[in-house]
């Protein structure tokens, strides 16, 4: 979306406030109320290393008490015929993209919540069920959630899933970055099991350094881009690739935080309650004037 649009919107929203002054165009950065720690952790996914063994899928289910089945059954590569998405029964899945150059190996891409720095889900949730932990994890609180599914509308990566088949206490399911394991000093289950170290867990800052170095040292292996470095304001999970990210079905997203526009509009309409209160006063005035007119007519 164009910058100009927003500015002209903010001007029109002044109109909504019925000509109230004092509504200044704010820049459209989302208001970060959550802690964004300098030392937040992240994972760097190197899709050029991943062999598509799907062990992370098994480990994830096991760590989250989801029916996981036999680890051998994950060697079946026929699942790659169709693109799969994380859902309420699998918080992460691996997809495969055949290479246009048939002499080259296909690319495997692990998909899960990106743990955004400016999470749209967090901004949107009606009851504030999401929070961004200092460790970087975006976690969901079952005590609060009312099941409205607005987080699913908001998430730019189409991640949160809902348990549609449950009549009582359906959950929103998504990767929680193994927050229970990491607070006990363990690695996330997927990172721990990965046999080829396609996943690197570390401070987000350091991971970006690592990624840049890799790109610099192997310019033939990687395209010069880290997905998640700046997308929608940055994410805790980041990807390296030898091919264009859109070929791997990553959505094309800008650098502005996903909640930015909507929060600034919201803020414009509700700036310290000035617009609604002014509208109230204005209408009260109109009512009083009309009443007076009526009276003087009667006399």
């Amino acid at each position, binding site marked *: *979306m164009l910058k100009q649009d927003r500015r002209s919107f903010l001007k029109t929203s002044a109109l909504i406030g019925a000509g109230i002054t004092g509504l200044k165009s704010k820049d459209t950065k989302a208001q970060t109320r959550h802690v964004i720690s300098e030392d937040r952790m992240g994972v760097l996914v190197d899709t050029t290393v991943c062999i598509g063994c799907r062990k992370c899928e098994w480990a994830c289910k096991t760590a989250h008490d989801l029916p996981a089945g036999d680890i051998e059954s994950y060697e079946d590569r026929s699942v790659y015929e169709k*693109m799969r998405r994380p859902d309420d029964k699998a918080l992460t899945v691996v997809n495969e993209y055949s290479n246009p150059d048939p002499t080259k190996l296909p690319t495997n891409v692990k998909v899960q919540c990106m743990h955004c720095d400016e999470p749209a889900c967090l*901004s949107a949730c*009606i009851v504030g069920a999401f929070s961004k932990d200092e460790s970087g994890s975006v976690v969901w609180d079952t005590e609060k*959630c009312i099941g*409205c599914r607005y987080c699913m*509308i908001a998430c730019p990566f189409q991640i949160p899933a809902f348990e549609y*088949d449950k009549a009582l206490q359906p959950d929103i399911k998504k990767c929680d970055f193994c927050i229970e394991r990491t607070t006990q000093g363990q690695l996330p289950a997927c990172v721990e099991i990965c046999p080829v170290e396609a996943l690197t867990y570390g401070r987000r800052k350091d991971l970006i350094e690592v990624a840049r170095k890799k790109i610099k040292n192997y310019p033939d292996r990687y395209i010069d881009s880290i997905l998640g470095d700046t997308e929608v304001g940055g994410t805790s999970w980041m990807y390296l690739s030898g091919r264009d990210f859109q070929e791997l079905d990553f959505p094309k997203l800008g650098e502005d935080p996903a909640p930015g526009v909507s929060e600034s509009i919201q803020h414009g*309409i509700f700036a310290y309650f000035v617009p609604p209160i002014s509208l109230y006063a204005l209408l009260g005035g109109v009512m009083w004037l009309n009443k007076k007119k009526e009276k003087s007519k009667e006399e």
Partner: protein
Amino acid sequence: MEHFMKPAPIEKKYFTPGVMVFVVLAAIGLVFLAIRFIGGIGAVTNLDNQHPWGIWIGLDVALGVALAAGGFTSAALGHIWHREHYHAIIRPALLTALLGYTFVAVSVAMDLGRYYYIWHPLIMWNGTSVLFEVGICVMIYLTVLYIEFLPIVAERFIGRVNLPGLLSRLNKTVDSLLRALDRGLDKTMFVFIIAGVVLSCLHQSSLGSLMIIAGPKMHPLWQTPILPLLFLLSAIGVGFPMVIFESLISSRSFGLKPETPILTNLGNIIGPILGIYLAFKIGDMVIRQTFVYLTTITTESVMYAIEIVIGVIVPLRMFLSEQVRKSPAGLFIASSLVIFGVFMNRLNTFLVAYTPPYEMTTYFPSVGEIAVTVGFISIEVLLYRLMVKIFPVISHPQKDVAPQTKFSVRGMI
């Protein structure tokens, strides 16, 4: 001597063949609703992780709120701009809004995975959430609507309280309570009326902001930062057509003379409002250059064209013609088209425009979803008919009564 028009309960038989049809539709809806509570949302709807919202939100809630806008637009016109001759339409519009919003709330609850937590937003606030703001505004507005309706209840029962059996000893007390309430409300009603208009402006527009956070998931024809303004304008635009539409239907159904002069006057206001709405809609399209999407035939472009041409431009032209505004049939058709236009707009904004990045299936509402929506509308119609039989809502000619202005707002300042 001309008969004086005064709101009074309608004395007509409740059940007619038409009413029975609504009863059947309502029953079918309730059956599907029961399945939703037994088997979960997935058991009835076609919703999935790609399409988290369906017609229960896009139509029952978003369209429901828009079509109930007649309540605040006519309150503004009648009470705030103090146009006495519109008073005949205020009560029917208020009742529609009351029932409409009640069912919006019920529909939201049905669509919530955890409906029993519907009170959570009251104590768990998230200021950045548009949905939170919509939710809170709708809750307060619903309360305001009930308060605005109280004087009508009081009017019906003052001097006529007749409790059954032992309770009849309380008749006097209840009566004096009602009188006290009525007197109190009379003096303070203006507070609620203005509050109702402000709250409506807020949530009607925020309902548009809801989809902004979906960003690129929404088709550019509808995704614009001025969505809240467009939603507010279209809500104001559909308010009076909805009043006209209902007024004509109920006068027909109750065998009353249509209140054509008042409706014609209302019609005069609709044209300009639709014009402003259309100007913003087209202006937005030109500025963001989204007309390029109209050059190819896709579901989106066709739906957009229908929405604008049949739902805005045609009725706009009709409302500008004096001949149309003077004839009940013309008013009826033009109003229906405006309602259709807003129906299309909400459907398009919430469902057609929503294209998630990973879309493996397309969404079309299931039989169950449609049945529940139709069932709710039927229940609303049935309740409306019941309410106008009990309460003095619809104005019709009365003999031997003095003009009464009690429910205009008085006691200002």
